[in-house]
């Protein structure tokens, strides 16, 4: 047994003890009025200092209040996760890339157009870095993959403001990057940018994301009453709509 209480000039207790509590700790004394001594209480009864102001512990009781409030309904907000370079899971397909848009299409127009398919989290129209001209490209981030899927299904190759637009699911915006580069470096104009397979396969370095075709969803529930028995797998959009892995 180590010399508790014997370090600073106090005698180590001569009786057998089992537990102690430090009643006065000079290190915790806020005012530091005078160098106070450590005072220990052993087994609830004996004190290391003979002073009548220290009284032994009375009967032990449960200090807790027995009656606690009923389980309140917990409403915990669901966080939105940001996918950064350390993410190693499957990327949910929530982002849609639009190409060949009419240059009068602005963020609000796009948002309204997409809103009927699902809640839109972010909308961005891409402009030329120097001339600030409309590139006919946009990125729309939905809060759910369903919204993204529906949008592509319904808007791809439809006429919007007189232009036949191209809508596709785009993992990490890779397609969009390709189009952006092609238009900005002058190879193509906003209405002629190749949205077929050629532009993709030219510069694609065979990223792993291109072969993703299924997505497994995880379920976590703590407040709802009914439970699923396991994980659910969501398939990709139907054959007619393009995905970023089309070649």
């Amino acid at each position: 047994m180590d010399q508790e209480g014997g370090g600073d000039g106090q005698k180590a207790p001569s009786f057998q003890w089992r537990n102690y509590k430090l009643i006065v700790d000079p290190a915790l004394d806020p005012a530091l009025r005078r160098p106070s001594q450590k005072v220990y209480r052993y087994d609830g009864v004996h004190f290391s200092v003979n002073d009548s102001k220290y009284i032994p512990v009375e009967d032990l009781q449960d200090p807790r209040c027995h009656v606690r409030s009923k389980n309140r309904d917990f409403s915990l907000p669901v966080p939105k996760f940001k996918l950064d370079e350390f993410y190693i899971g499957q990327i949910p397909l929530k982002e849609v890339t639009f190409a060949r848009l009419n240059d009068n299409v602005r963020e609000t127009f796009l948002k309204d157009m997409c809103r009927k398919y699902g809640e839109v989290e972010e909308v961005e129209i891409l402009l030329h870095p120097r001339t600030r001209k409309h590139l006919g490209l946009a990125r729309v981030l939905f809060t759910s993959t369903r919204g993204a899927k529906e949008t592509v299904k319904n808007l791809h190759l439809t006429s919007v403001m007189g232009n036949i637009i191209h809508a596709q699911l785009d993992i990490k915006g890779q397609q969009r990057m390709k189009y952006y580069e092609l238009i900005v470096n002058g190879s193509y104009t906003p209405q002629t940018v190749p949205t077929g397979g050629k532009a993709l396969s030219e510069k694609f370095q065979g990223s792993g994301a291109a072969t993703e075709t299924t997505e497994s969803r995880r379920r976590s529930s703590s407040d709802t009453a009914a439970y699923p028995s396991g994980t659910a797998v969501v398939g990709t959009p139907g054959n007619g709509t393009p995905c970023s892995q089309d070649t």
Partner: protein
Amino acid sequence: PKRTLYSKKYGVDLIRYTHAANTVVYSSNKIDDTIRYLSLHDNKYIRYFPGHSKRVVALSMSPVDDTFISGSLDKTIRLWDLRSPNCQGLMHLQGKPVCSFDPEGLIFAAGVNSEMVKLYDLRSFDKGPFATFKMQYDRTCEWTGLKFSNDGKLILISTNGSFIRLIDAFKGVVMHTFGGYANSKAVTLEASFTPDSQFIMIGSEDGKIHVWNGESGIKVAVLDGKHTGPITCLQFNPKFMTFASACSNMAFWLPTIDD
């Protein structure tokens, strides 16, 4: 991950955040058994808490103030205050302890020798526990942890075997025993409550998470996070609807609605 800090000389075993921003206390697993108080921001030690003579196996921060308790294989539980290097309290027990504060910070529970749960009042713990609950002793496994539910009504005892027990925090009665998950290698798996204290979850060695309803005792879900190894850590976020599980990879979970 923001940064990685190294503690190569002393090793790191159990880590707990304190109430101050960016500081932790952790137990060492090399050289000595001192508990260290580290500032994550400047990677400097603020204080050392020496005293244990064997490995620290339990570490718990008080939910309400700057005290923490540590349980060690030297069969003692020590109470500390972050602001002082002096040990605030010491208890000798009959065997290996696991310990935890209750959510109000009034008492702490100590699981002793994998067969008894003792409840101590923070004002009078040196006199002894105010309640002792004797449990069924199981020679096949050991208790590895003790947790209170957020409402303070239940205590969850985790083991290195393939079952966990839920007991009433006031009377010590075993409410449920949850099993049915795999743990053949006696790995220390962490079991957790959800913040509303209604569900209990544990990760098994095959990477799946089992969830039970605490009141009925019925298993409600088996979640597959595609973990490649035993899930040694599992904790629910107290503020958001998400939880994290970790084997050698860390997964964050979100509730999803059918898309």
